[in-house]
């Protein structure tokens, strides 16, 4: 239990996906202009990360390791993720049209989001069991959503600020990310 808590808190606060591991930066800068979009995107990524971790956790622990073909994991994982995103998209479209309208445009983008492939590779690298993989996916997804929400709230205010012309848009967003990253380094001694 202690071990699971360490994995979870570690990924949310200390080894945060965005601020410390630089995974999923494209949606982080692309979708963080409005708070409502940020929440939807965070939820979509967390959902796909969770499902992908379960699927690849099963494949890794019960197929790749017994047959000793771990080196195939890159090809298999990316195909599994691409297929899963398609399935999730179809299921959401059929069952909950409101949710589909909120998440719809972000779902196809998630296939090439390095956060999703990243979490499955981290799970494989650390030889996590299925339960540990699920916890790490939840931690990673929550950490990602948290950053996206904080970032979009700051950027909404920042739109009104008088920024130098060449710093407008992305460069100032990177500076904000840098300050956030500096603040979150304070959590380093937590565990």
């Amino acid at each position, binding site marked *: 239990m202690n071990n699971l808590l360490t994995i979870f808190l570690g990924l949310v606060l200390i080894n945060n996906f965005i601020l410390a591991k630089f995974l999923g930066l494209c949606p982080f800068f692309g979708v963080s202009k409005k708070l409502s979009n940020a929440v939807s995107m965070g939820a979509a990524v967390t959902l796909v990360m969770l499902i992908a971790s379960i699927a690849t956790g099963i494949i890794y622990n019960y197929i790749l390791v017994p047959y000793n073909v771990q080196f195939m994991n890159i090809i298999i994982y990316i195909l599994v993720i691409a297929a899963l995103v398609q399935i999730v998209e179809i299921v959401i479209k059929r069952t909950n049209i409101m949710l589909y309208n909120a998440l719809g445009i972000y779902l196809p983008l998630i296939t090439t989001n*390095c956060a999703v492939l990243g979490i499955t590779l981290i799970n494989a690298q650390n030889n996590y069991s299925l339960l540990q993989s699920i916890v790490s996916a939840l931690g990673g997804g929550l950490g990602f959503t948290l950053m996206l929400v904080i970032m979009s709230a700051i950027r909404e205010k920042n739109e009104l600020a008088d920024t130098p012309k060449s710093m407008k848009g992305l460069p100032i967003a990177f500076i904000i990310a840098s*300050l956030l990253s500096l603040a979150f380094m304070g959590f380093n001694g937590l565990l």
Partner: protein
Amino acid sequence: MNMEELEERFSAKKFWKELAKGIILTNPVFVLVLGLCPTLAVTTSVNNALGMGAGVIFVLLGSNFIISIIRKITPGMVRIPVFIVVIASFVTILSLVFEAYLPPLYESLGIYLPLIVVNCIILGRAEVFASKNPIIYSIADGLGAGLGFTIALIIISFLREVLGTGSLVIFGKQLFSIPVISTSPLSIFIMPPGAFIIIALLMALFRLIGVLKNE
């Protein structure tokens, strides 16, 4: 290579044009802002940046070559999965080669080596260029984008390593060391916040040059 390809006359001028375009005009990192994750994560030292750059160039050349060969027999509906499988195969080859022959580099690149699969630069070049153009120009395009990416990585990692450690070490050899900084290094630049600051300033610099030119 089929007859059709040979008939299309090779023009050296176009070859160099495709090559140069990726390095300056459409630099993947500073101009198109693609492939951010590896750009920030592996630029803690010039050594890592060189390894990452070489890896990306290898995968880009391989995937552009294969995708250009099979472009006429690939059905449009399934082209993206086909591209991803081709890219993932080359990344697997690369990661096995690094693991066998360059274990220290393999260790320090960590999960960012397999993550080359989802680097938008590679899928982008496959979709925009290699799937529509002959083999020879696809190779030039891949090489150009790869070199542009590598040059950007080298610039960022050079600044980070020099400011963060006060010296520059390439392939285990110390090239130079700056007196004041090496005794009390600004270690923030090797840590994640430094990566964000450096890329923000470089991007603003590129914008500033662009703004001045336009006015």
